[in-house]
Protein backbone atom coordinates (compact mmCIF):
# COMPACT_ATOMS: atom_id res chain seq x y z
CA UNK A 1 0.00 0.00 0.00
CA UNK A 2 2.67 2.43 1.00
CA UNK A 3 5.57 2.62 -1.37
CA UNK A 4 7.72 5.09 0.46
CA UNK A 5 9.62 3.64 3.34
CA UNK A 6 9.53 5.58 6.52
CA UNK A 7 12.43 7.83 7.14
CA UNK A 8 11.71 8.51 10.77
CA UNK A 9 14.42 9.02 13.32
CA UNK A 10 13.78 7.49 16.70
CA UNK A 11 16.26 8.75 19.23
CA UNK A 12 18.81 9.18 16.54
CA UNK A 13 18.36 5.75 14.95
CA UNK A 14 17.01 5.37 11.46
CA UNK A 15 13.71 3.66 11.26
CA UNK A 16 12.89 2.25 7.89
CA UNK A 17 10.49 -0.59 8.48
CA UNK A 18 7.41 -0.54 6.38
CA UNK A 19 4.37 -0.31 8.57
CA UNK A 20 2.56 -3.52 7.75
CA UNK A 21 -0.47 -2.76 9.82
CA UNK A 22 -1.52 0.06 7.57
CA UNK A 23 -3.29 -2.36 5.31
CA UNK A 24 -6.87 -2.83 6.41
CA UNK A 25 -9.32 -5.15 4.67
CA UNK A 26 -11.88 -2.86 3.00
CA UNK A 27 -14.90 -4.37 4.75
CA UNK A 28 -13.31 -3.84 8.15
CA UNK A 29 -12.32 -0.29 7.43
CA UNK A 30 -15.53 1.31 8.59
CA UNK A 31 -15.37 -0.41 11.96
CA UNK A 32 -11.72 0.45 12.16
CA UNK A 33 -12.21 4.12 11.46
CA UNK A 34 -14.93 4.34 14.03
CA UNK A 35 -12.39 3.26 16.60
CA UNK A 36 -10.74 6.67 16.23
CA UNK A 37 -12.18 9.53 18.17
CA UNK A 38 -10.91 12.08 15.65
CA UNK A 39 -7.85 13.30 13.80
CA UNK A 40 -5.80 13.77 16.97
CA UNK A 41 -6.59 10.23 17.99
CA UNK A 42 -5.55 8.94 14.59
CA UNK A 43 -2.31 10.92 14.67
CA UNK A 44 -1.48 9.60 18.10
CA UNK A 45 -2.13 6.11 16.86
CA UNK A 46 0.28 6.60 13.98
CA UNK A 47 2.93 8.10 16.20
CA UNK A 48 2.65 5.32 18.75
CA UNK A 49 2.44 2.60 16.14
CA UNK A 50 5.61 3.70 14.46
CA UNK A 51 7.43 4.75 17.55
CA UNK A 52 7.86 8.27 16.32
CA UNK A 53 9.32 10.83 18.69
CA UNK A 54 6.50 13.21 19.48
CA UNK A 55 9.02 15.93 20.29
CA UNK A 56 10.62 15.60 16.87
CA UNK A 57 7.87 14.49 14.54
CA UNK A 58 8.95 13.63 10.97
CA UNK A 59 6.22 15.67 9.36
CA UNK A 60 6.56 14.29 5.85
CA UNK A 61 6.06 10.71 6.91
CA UNK A 62 3.35 11.40 9.38
CA UNK A 63 1.43 13.48 6.84
CA UNK A 64 1.75 10.83 4.19
CA UNK A 65 0.46 8.08 6.47
CA UNK A 66 -2.31 10.25 7.70
CA UNK A 67 -3.44 11.01 4.15
CA UNK A 68 -3.73 7.31 3.38
CA UNK A 69 -6.33 6.95 6.12
CA UNK A 70 -8.18 10.08 5.21
CA UNK A 71 -8.43 9.01 1.58
CA UNK A 72 -10.03 5.78 2.70
CA UNK A 73 -12.43 7.66 4.91
CA UNK A 74 -13.40 9.93 2.09
CA UNK A 75 -14.18 6.91 -0.01
CA UNK A 76 -16.48 5.40 2.58
CA UNK A 77 -17.70 7.85 5.13
CA UNK A 78 -17.63 11.34 3.80
CA UNK A 79 -19.41 13.04 6.68
CA UNK A 80 -16.81 11.72 9.09
CA UNK A 81 -14.01 13.33 7.16
CA UNK A 82 -14.64 17.00 7.90
CA UNK A 83 -12.48 17.27 11.02
CA UNK A 84 -9.94 14.98 9.40
CA UNK A 85 -9.62 17.15 6.30
CA UNK A 86 -9.00 20.18 8.43
CA UNK A 87 -6.18 18.33 10.09
CA UNK A 88 -4.69 17.31 6.71
CA UNK A 89 -4.54 20.94 5.76
CA UNK A 90 -2.83 21.76 9.02
CA UNK A 91 -0.28 18.97 8.59
CA UNK A 92 0.54 20.06 5.05
CA UNK A 93 0.91 23.63 6.19
CA UNK A 94 3.32 22.64 8.95
CA UNK A 95 5.29 20.49 6.56
CA UNK A 96 5.65 23.31 4.04
CA UNK A 97 6.64 25.81 6.70
CA UNK A 98 9.41 23.47 7.76
CA UNK A 99 10.77 23.53 4.23
CA UNK A 100 11.18 27.28 4.24
CA UNK A 101 14.67 28.63 4.76
CA UNK A 102 15.07 29.54 8.39
CA UNK A 103 17.64 31.21 10.61
CA UNK A 104 20.25 28.84 11.96
CA UNK A 105 19.13 29.29 15.54
CA UNK A 106 15.42 28.65 15.87
CA UNK A 107 13.77 28.99 19.17
CA UNK A 108 11.62 26.03 20.15
CA UNK A 109 8.58 28.27 20.10
CA UNK A 110 9.19 28.99 16.44
CA UNK A 111 9.03 25.34 15.50
CA UNK A 112 5.98 25.07 13.23
CA UNK A 113 5.17 21.76 14.94
CA UNK A 114 4.95 23.24 18.43
CA UNK A 115 1.20 23.81 18.45
CA UNK A 116 0.47 20.37 17.03
CA UNK A 117 2.75 18.74 19.59
CA UNK A 118 1.07 20.64 22.42
CA UNK A 119 -2.36 19.52 21.26
CA UNK A 120 -1.28 15.92 20.79
CA UNK A 121 0.24 15.82 24.26
CA UNK A 122 -2.78 17.35 25.88
CA UNK A 123 -5.13 15.00 24.08
CA UNK A 124 -3.05 12.00 25.00
CA UNK A 125 -3.07 13.02 28.66
CA UNK A 126 -6.87 13.33 28.54
CA UNK A 127 -7.16 9.97 26.81
CA UNK A 128 -5.17 8.35 29.59
CA UNK A 129 -7.16 9.85 32.43
CA UNK A 130 -10.41 9.08 30.63
CA UNK A 131 -9.35 5.47 30.61
CA UNK A 132 -8.51 5.56 34.28
CA UNK A 133 -11.83 7.21 35.15
CA UNK A 134 -13.54 4.49 33.18
CA UNK A 135 -11.74 1.80 35.13
CA UNK A 136 -12.41 3.29 38.57
CA UNK A 137 -15.06 1.50 40.63
CA UNK A 138 -18.23 3.54 40.76
CA UNK A 139 -21.44 3.44 42.73
CA UNK A 140 -23.52 0.84 40.93
CA UNK A 141 -20.45 -0.61 39.23
CA UNK A 142 -18.18 -2.08 41.85
CA UNK A 143 -19.24 0.12 44.74
CA UNK A 144 -22.34 -0.99 46.67
CA UNK A 145 -23.81 1.47 49.11
CA UNK A 146 -25.67 0.44 52.26
CA UNK A 147 -29.40 0.89 51.80
CA UNK A 148 -31.21 -1.04 54.49
CA UNK A 149 -34.92 -0.52 54.70
CA UNK A 150 -36.61 1.69 57.25
CA UNK A 151 -40.20 2.47 57.98
CA UNK A 152 -40.59 6.05 56.99
CA UNK A 153 -42.70 7.85 59.52
CA UNK A 154 -43.21 11.45 58.73
CA UNK A 155 -42.42 13.80 61.50
CA UNK A 156 -44.12 17.06 60.92
CA UNK A 157 -41.90 20.00 61.51
CA UNK A 158 -43.66 23.05 62.91
CA UNK A 159 -43.84 26.00 60.55
CA UNK A 160 -41.08 28.54 60.52
CA UNK A 161 -41.98 31.97 61.81
CA UNK A 162 -39.80 34.94 61.11
CA UNK A 163 -39.71 38.30 62.80
CA UNK A 164 -41.26 39.73 59.69
CA UNK A 165 -44.18 37.30 59.92
CA UNK A 166 -44.74 38.35 63.49
CA UNK A 167 -44.51 42.07 62.76
CA UNK A 168 -46.84 41.57 59.82
CA UNK A 169 -49.40 39.85 62.06
CA UNK A 170 -49.22 42.64 64.62
CA UNK A 171 -49.53 45.20 61.87
CA UNK A 172 -52.68 43.58 60.58
CA UNK A 173 -54.12 43.51 64.11
CA UNK A 174 -53.49 47.22 64.42
CA UNK A 175 -54.79 47.96 60.97
CA UNK A 176 -58.08 46.23 61.57
CA UNK A 177 -58.74 47.86 64.91
CA UNK A 178 -58.48 51.52 64.07
CA UNK A 179 -58.98 52.43 67.70
CA UNK A 180 -55.60 50.88 68.38
CA UNK A 181 -53.80 53.68 66.65
CA UNK A 182 -52.76 54.90 70.06
CA UNK A 183 -50.95 51.65 70.68
CA UNK A 184 -47.55 52.84 69.76
CA UNK A 185 -45.38 50.08 70.98
CA UNK A 186 -41.79 51.18 71.22
CA UNK A 187 -38.74 49.34 72.35
CA UNK A 188 -38.97 50.75 75.89
CA UNK A 189 -42.54 49.62 76.29
CA UNK A 190 -41.69 46.17 75.03
CA UNK A 191 -38.97 45.70 77.61
CA UNK A 192 -41.35 46.83 80.31
CA UNK A 193 -43.88 44.28 79.10
CA UNK A 194 -41.22 41.59 78.97
CA UNK A 195 -40.20 42.36 82.54
CA UNK A 196 -43.81 42.29 83.64
CA UNK A 197 -43.89 38.69 82.47
CA UNK A 198 -40.58 37.95 84.15
CA UNK A 199 -41.79 39.34 87.49
CA UNK A 200 -45.04 37.40 87.26
CA UNK A 201 -43.06 34.21 86.59
CA UNK A 202 -40.92 34.83 89.66
CA UNK A 203 -43.94 35.57 91.82
CA UNK A 204 -45.57 32.41 90.60
CA UNK A 205 -42.62 30.53 92.00
CA UNK A 206 -42.03 32.50 95.19
CA UNK A 207 -45.40 34.02 95.97
CA UNK A 208 -43.89 36.81 98.07
CA UNK A 209 -40.76 38.72 97.25
CA UNK A 210 -39.04 41.54 98.97
CA UNK A 211 -38.99 44.57 96.74
CA UNK A 212 -35.20 44.75 96.70
CA UNK A 213 -34.91 41.09 95.71
CA UNK A 214 -36.27 41.96 92.31
CA UNK A 215 -33.30 44.15 91.59
CA UNK A 216 -29.82 42.95 90.90
CA UNK A 217 -28.16 46.26 91.65
CA UNK A 218 -24.69 44.86 91.13
CA UNK A 219 -25.16 43.29 87.71
CA UNK A 220 -28.04 45.12 86.07
CA UNK A 221 -27.32 48.47 84.57
CA UNK A 222 -29.42 51.53 85.39
CA UNK A 223 -31.68 51.15 82.33
CA UNK A 224 -32.57 47.62 83.35
CA UNK A 225 -33.28 48.65 86.95
CA UNK A 226 -35.56 51.38 85.67
CA UNK A 227 -37.35 48.91 83.42
CA UNK A 228 -37.91 46.58 86.40
CA UNK A 229 -39.31 49.45 88.38
CA UNK A 230 -41.64 50.53 85.57
CA UNK A 231 -42.75 46.92 85.16
CA UNK A 232 -43.69 46.74 88.85
CA UNK A 233 -45.64 49.99 88.62
CA UNK A 234 -47.41 48.83 85.46
CA UNK A 235 -48.31 45.49 87.07
CA UNK A 236 -49.69 47.31 90.10
CA UNK A 237 -51.62 49.69 87.88
CA UNK A 238 -53.15 46.76 86.00
CA UNK A 239 -54.02 45.21 89.37
CA UNK A 240 -51.79 42.24 88.79
CA UNK A 241 -49.71 42.58 91.93
CA UNK A 242 -49.85 44.09 95.33
CA UNK A 243 -47.18 46.20 96.97
CA UNK A 244 -47.24 46.29 100.75
CA UNK A 245 -45.22 47.93 103.49
CA UNK A 246 -45.99 47.55 107.20
CA UNK A 247 -44.56 50.88 108.23
CA UNK A 248 -42.21 53.53 106.97
CA UNK A 249 -38.67 52.25 106.22
CA UNK A 250 -39.65 48.63 106.78
CA UNK A 251 -39.19 46.20 103.83
CA UNK A 252 -41.54 46.55 100.89
CA UNK A 253 -43.11 43.29 99.74
CA UNK A 254 -44.43 42.39 96.34
CA UNK A 255 -47.01 39.68 95.88
CA UNK A 256 -49.54 38.51 93.38
CA UNK A 257 -52.77 40.39 93.83
CA UNK A 258 -54.97 38.11 95.89
CA UNK A 259 -58.59 37.45 95.39
CA UNK A 260 -60.44 40.69 95.02
CA UNK A 261 -63.12 40.02 97.59
CA UNK A 262 -60.62 39.36 100.35
CA UNK A 263 -58.06 42.05 99.73
CA UNK A 264 -59.19 45.24 98.33
CA UNK A 265 -57.18 48.35 98.59
Amino acid at each position, binding site marked *: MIETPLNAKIKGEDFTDLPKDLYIPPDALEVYLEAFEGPLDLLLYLIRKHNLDILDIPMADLTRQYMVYVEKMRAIKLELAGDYLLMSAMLIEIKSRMLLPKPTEIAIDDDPRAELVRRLMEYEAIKLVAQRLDEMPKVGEGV*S*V*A*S*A*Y*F*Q*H*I*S*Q*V*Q*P*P*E*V*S*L*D*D*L*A*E*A*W*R*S*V*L*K*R*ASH*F*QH*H*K*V*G*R*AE*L*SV*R*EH*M*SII*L*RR*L*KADNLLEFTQLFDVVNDGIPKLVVYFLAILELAR*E*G*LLRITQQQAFSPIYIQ*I*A*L*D*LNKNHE
Partner: protein
Amino acid sequence: MSETSNIAQLKNVLEVALLTAQEPLSLDDLLRLFVERMERATLRMLLDELKQDWALRTLELVQVASGYRFQARKEYANYLARLNPERQAKYSRAVMETLAIIAYRQPVTRGDIEEIRGVAVNANVMRQLQERDWVDVVGQREVPGRPSLYATTQHFLDDLNLKSLAELPPMEDFVKSEIKL
Protein backbone atom coordinates in the same frame (compact mmCIF):
# COMPACT_ATOMS: atom_id res chain seq x y z
CA MET B 1 -10.18 -24.88 47.20
CA SER B 2 -13.67 -23.62 47.79
CA GLU B 3 -14.34 -19.96 47.26
CA THR B 4 -16.02 -19.39 50.58
CA SER B 5 -14.38 -21.69 53.01
CA ASN B 6 -16.22 -21.23 56.23
CA ILE B 7 -19.57 -20.35 57.69
CA ALA B 8 -18.46 -16.94 58.90
CA GLN B 9 -17.45 -15.99 55.39
CA LEU B 10 -20.67 -17.27 53.86
CA LYS B 11 -22.62 -15.20 56.36
CA ASN B 12 -20.53 -12.16 55.53
CA VAL B 13 -21.41 -12.46 51.87
CA LEU B 14 -25.09 -12.76 52.73
CA GLU B 15 -24.84 -9.82 55.12
CA VAL B 16 -23.17 -7.49 52.67
CA ALA B 17 -25.66 -8.41 49.94
CA LEU B 18 -28.64 -7.81 52.20
CA LEU B 19 -27.23 -4.55 53.60
CA THR B 20 -26.63 -3.07 50.17
CA ALA B 21 -29.69 -4.41 48.32
CA GLN B 22 -32.35 -1.88 47.43
CA GLU B 23 -35.08 -4.52 47.41
CA PRO B 24 -35.70 -7.62 49.49
CA LEU B 25 -33.65 -10.58 48.22
CA SER B 26 -35.32 -13.92 47.61
CA LEU B 27 -33.66 -17.25 48.36
CA ASP B 28 -33.00 -17.59 44.63
CA ASP B 29 -31.31 -14.19 44.53
CA LEU B 30 -29.14 -15.14 47.48
CA LEU B 31 -28.16 -18.48 45.97
CA ARG B 32 -26.82 -16.61 42.94
CA LEU B 33 -24.17 -15.02 45.20
CA PHE B 34 -22.29 -18.29 45.35
CA VAL B 35 -20.65 -20.03 42.46
CA GLU B 36 -20.81 -23.32 44.26
CA ARG B 37 -24.06 -25.10 44.71
CA MET B 38 -25.76 -24.51 48.04
CA GLU B 39 -28.77 -26.30 49.46
CA ARG B 40 -31.72 -24.10 50.26
CA ALA B 41 -31.77 -25.63 53.73
CA THR B 42 -28.18 -24.53 54.26
CA LEU B 43 -29.02 -21.04 53.09
CA ARG B 44 -31.97 -20.87 55.46
CA MET B 45 -29.79 -21.96 58.32
CA LEU B 46 -27.20 -19.30 57.49
CA LEU B 47 -29.91 -16.63 57.32
CA ASP B 48 -31.17 -17.79 60.68
CA GLU B 49 -27.74 -17.42 62.18
CA LEU B 50 -27.31 -14.01 60.61
CA LYS B 51 -30.60 -12.97 62.13
CA GLN B 52 -29.33 -14.09 65.53
CA ASP B 53 -26.06 -12.21 65.05
CA TRP B 54 -28.05 -9.00 64.58
CA ALA B 55 -30.52 -9.71 67.36
CA LEU B 56 -29.18 -6.98 69.63
CA ARG B 57 -28.14 -4.54 66.96
CA THR B 58 -29.61 -1.52 65.16
CA LEU B 59 -31.11 -3.42 62.24
CA GLU B 60 -33.12 -6.61 62.15
CA LEU B 61 -33.18 -9.19 59.42
CA VAL B 62 -36.81 -9.82 58.50
CA GLN B 63 -38.61 -11.88 55.93
CA VAL B 64 -41.23 -10.13 53.85
CA ALA B 65 -43.32 -11.34 50.93
CA SER B 66 -40.61 -11.01 48.29
CA GLY B 67 -37.67 -12.10 50.40
CA TYR B 68 -35.29 -11.06 53.14
CA ARG B 69 -34.19 -7.58 54.06
CA PHE B 70 -32.46 -5.68 56.83
CA GLN B 71 -34.55 -2.94 58.33
CA ALA B 72 -34.10 -0.38 61.07
CA ARG B 73 -35.57 -1.37 64.41
CA LYS B 74 -38.71 0.51 65.33
CA GLU B 75 -37.12 2.39 68.20
CA TYR B 76 -35.02 4.36 65.71
CA ALA B 77 -37.95 5.52 63.61
CA ASN B 78 -38.22 8.84 65.42
CA TYR B 79 -34.57 9.63 64.87
CA LEU B 80 -34.73 8.73 61.19
CA ALA B 81 -37.82 10.84 60.74
CA ARG B 82 -35.76 13.89 61.64
CA LEU B 83 -33.53 13.38 58.63
CA ASN B 84 -36.36 14.06 56.22
CA PRO B 85 -38.79 16.23 58.09
CA GLU B 86 -41.94 17.34 56.40
CA ARG B 87 -42.59 20.94 56.97
CA GLN B 88 -46.04 21.87 58.16
CA ALA B 89 -47.92 24.53 56.29
CA LYS B 90 -47.81 28.03 57.68
CA TYR B 91 -49.62 29.01 60.85
CA SER B 92 -53.10 30.40 60.36
CA ARG B 93 -53.66 34.10 60.59
CA ALA B 94 -55.48 33.60 63.91
CA VAL B 95 -52.41 31.90 65.39
CA MET B 96 -50.02 34.57 64.12
CA GLU B 97 -52.14 37.46 65.32
CA THR B 98 -52.65 35.89 68.72
CA LEU B 99 -48.92 35.34 69.00
CA ALA B 100 -48.27 38.94 67.99
CA ILE B 101 -50.70 40.26 70.59
CA ILE B 102 -49.15 38.14 73.32
CA ALA B 103 -45.66 39.21 72.26
CA TYR B 104 -46.42 42.93 72.10
CA ARG B 105 -49.00 43.28 74.88
CA GLN B 106 -47.97 40.65 77.40
CA PRO B 107 -49.03 39.65 79.94
CA VAL B 108 -52.53 39.34 78.49
CA THR B 109 -55.62 37.25 79.15
CA ARG B 110 -57.65 35.51 76.53
CA GLY B 111 -60.23 38.22 77.07
CA ASP B 112 -57.65 40.88 76.18
CA ILE B 113 -56.79 39.04 72.99
CA GLU B 114 -60.44 38.68 72.06
CA GLU B 115 -61.02 42.33 72.68
CA ILE B 116 -58.13 43.34 70.47
CA ARG B 117 -58.91 40.93 67.64
CA GLY B 118 -62.63 41.43 67.92
CA VAL B 119 -63.30 37.69 67.68
CA ALA B 120 -63.29 34.77 70.09
CA VAL B 121 -59.97 32.99 70.49
CA ASN B 122 -60.22 29.38 69.46
CA ALA B 123 -58.87 27.01 72.14
CA ASN B 124 -56.91 25.28 69.40
CA VAL B 125 -54.99 28.47 68.68
CA MET B 126 -53.74 28.75 72.24
CA ARG B 127 -52.92 25.05 72.29
CA GLN B 128 -50.74 25.33 69.18
CA LEU B 129 -48.76 28.16 70.72
CA GLN B 130 -48.39 26.39 74.05
CA GLU B 131 -47.40 23.09 72.43
CA ARG B 132 -44.72 24.91 70.54
CA ASP B 133 -43.57 26.21 73.93
CA TRP B 134 -43.75 29.76 72.67
CA VAL B 135 -46.42 30.92 75.09
CA ASP B 136 -47.20 30.02 78.66
CA VAL B 137 -49.29 31.06 81.63
CA VAL B 138 -47.42 33.36 83.98
CA GLY B 139 -50.22 34.09 86.45
CA GLN B 140 -53.88 34.94 86.85
CA ARG B 141 -55.55 38.26 86.76
CA GLU B 142 -57.35 38.73 90.03
CA VAL B 143 -60.72 39.46 88.59
CA PRO B 144 -63.76 37.20 88.70
CA GLY B 145 -62.94 33.92 86.96
CA ARG B 146 -59.21 34.53 87.56
CA PRO B 147 -58.32 34.34 83.85
CA SER B 148 -54.85 33.13 82.95
CA LEU B 149 -52.26 35.65 81.94
CA TYR B 150 -50.24 34.63 78.90
CA ALA B 151 -46.72 35.68 78.03
CA THR B 152 -44.08 34.58 75.56
CA THR B 153 -41.35 32.23 76.72
CA GLN B 154 -37.58 32.21 76.53
CA HIS B 155 -37.94 29.49 73.94
CA PHE B 156 -39.92 31.84 71.71
CA LEU B 157 -37.08 34.36 71.89
CA ASP B 158 -34.56 31.62 71.09
CA ASP B 159 -36.52 30.40 68.09
CA LEU B 160 -36.83 33.90 66.70
CA ASN B 161 -33.22 34.54 67.44
CA LEU B 162 -33.88 37.39 69.83
CA LYS B 163 -32.10 38.30 73.03
CA SER B 164 -35.12 40.09 74.42
CA LEU B 165 -38.53 41.36 73.43
CA ALA B 166 -37.00 44.79 73.01
CA GLU B 167 -35.52 43.46 69.79
CA LEU B 168 -38.94 42.91 68.25
CA PRO B 169 -39.57 45.38 65.43
CA PRO B 170 -41.02 48.45 67.12
CA MET B 171 -44.42 49.38 65.82
CA GLU B 172 -44.20 53.13 66.33
CA ASP B 173 -42.81 53.56 62.88
CA PHE B 174 -45.65 51.62 61.43
CA VAL B 175 -48.33 53.77 63.00
CA LYS B 176 -46.60 56.89 61.84
CA SER B 177 -46.18 55.65 58.32
CA GLU B 178 -49.70 54.34 57.95
CA ILE B 179 -51.53 57.43 59.03
CA LYS B 180 -51.02 60.07 56.46
CA LEU B 181 -51.52 63.50 57.91
